């Protein structure tokens, strides 16, 4: 398998800082905002962003949660192997909040569609935005577009985007993998 690095450690950090400042522009002091990472690979990004926002704003009471979308997926029984559900954790009320959904890669948009369904089971947020580290352009199956994008790339359907994290894989970087 061939792989090419498209974001190295330096540009990775810069990208996350930029995303944080873009969030601050729209959410000011984050009093009514909830950051929600999509299981499993959106969690490290949500944690990183929450940590950096906390440092910039000097506060540690940001609403941060994670959501698992397994039960709302539209491909149940269409996969060879079923997906094992992961945990959902939301210690706050989403009713009337400004929710920012966070995931590492936006591809077909189906995961985000399922996440929207899951969020609505907890209440009616005032608005929902989408933040992704990598937007794979021209590959959407559904009319879903991100509000905050780390990096936009063009890929072929056969290629795979892998976002690696220092805390999980030992290195912050984004790879394009080709069979």
């Amino acid at each position, binding site marked *: 398998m061939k792989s090419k690095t498209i974001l190295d450690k330096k540009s990775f950090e810069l990208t996350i800082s930029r995303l944080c400042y873009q969030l601050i522009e729209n959410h000011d002091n984050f009093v009514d905002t909830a950051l929600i990472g999509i*299981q*499993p*690979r959106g969690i490290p990004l949500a944690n990183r962003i929450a940590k950096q926002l906390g440092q910039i704003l000097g506060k540690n009471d940001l609403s941060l949660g994670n959501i*698992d979308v*397994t*039960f*709302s*997926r539209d491909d*149940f*029984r269409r*996969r060879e*192997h*079923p*997906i*094992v*559900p*992961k*945990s*959902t954790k939301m210690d706050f009320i989403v009713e009337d909040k400004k929710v920012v959904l966070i995931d*590492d*890669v936006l*591809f*077909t948009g*189906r*995961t985000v569609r399922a996440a929207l*369904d899951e969020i*609505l*089971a*907890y*209440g009616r947020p005032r608005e929902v935005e989408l933040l992704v580290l990598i937007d794979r352009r021209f590959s959407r199956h559904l009319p879903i577009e991100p509000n905050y994008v780390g990096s936009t790339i063009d890929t072929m359907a056969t290629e*795979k985007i892998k976002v690696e994290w220092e805390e999980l894989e030992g290195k912050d970087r984004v790879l394009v993998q080709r069979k």
Partner: protein
Amino acid sequence: MNEQAIIKNQLSTEHLLGIKQITAADINLIFETADQFKEVLNRPIKKVPSLRDITVANLFFENSTRTRISFELAEKRLGADVVNFSAASSSLKKGETLIDTVNNILAMKVDMVVMRHPNPGSCIFLSRHIDVPIINAGDGAHEHPTQALLDTYSIREQHGSLKGKKVVIVGDILHSRVALSNIFCLQKLGAEVMVCGPTTLMPKYIASLGVKVEHNLRRALEWCDVANMLRIQLERQEIMYFPSLREYSMMYGLTKEILDSLGKKITVMHPGPINRGVEITSDVADSSQSIILDQVENGVAVRMAILYLLAGKIKREE
């Protein structure tokens, strides 16, 4: 999409006929899935759409309140369509056979069957003749797998793990499908099991299952971490197995005095329905050591997990 999320992890069986037929890995997968459904049940909207294209038939050839409602709630909260059937209002009275009854229901495009039947082995028999997933909701005095799974799930919730835990099952072991399924389930997860009751309510070869046998309630309770108190099933007893209910409750009834005198806090369980004052007194049933209502609550999450995992194996032919 995240390829990492895909783990080859599914049940080893197409049906849930009994605990005997499933593996420890299956049980753990059911528990891990139930953990997530428990979270779903605490949401303001307690419903997910996973089974929205599935129709489940609940066939109850024997009376049930708790199990039937629990299954029905589990099915509805997964988004499935549900049809209910009870023996009292059925064509069975007109002489139809079990296979004919079930095949007629399946002809109306039903995808899964949940069945309770008074005859032991009826689910296994049915599974040889129809090809939709069957969940055994109790077959005579044989097995009641979902009850055993929710019982062990509740113990796991209280104690973290089943490994090395000492569980005593007290009462009418002879007529109890709950006892047999619990013994299999607890042993597969590494717990030690003891059965306790009068000699007349003890199956003759019960020790061959690898369980300890005890006839003194106090000694059993001193040994255990968890006591599962079974109901005296008067409706299954064709002869008198003990002189009187009063004598039974004096010998084998769990009272607050015994519980407090043990010098340790054991967990008290009961599969329901409770005969208050017979196998368990009211103050014990309502005490902080009793997890009877947690068992009922967990029942819905565990049944959702079983339905979800078995439905995941249904393949649609387009």
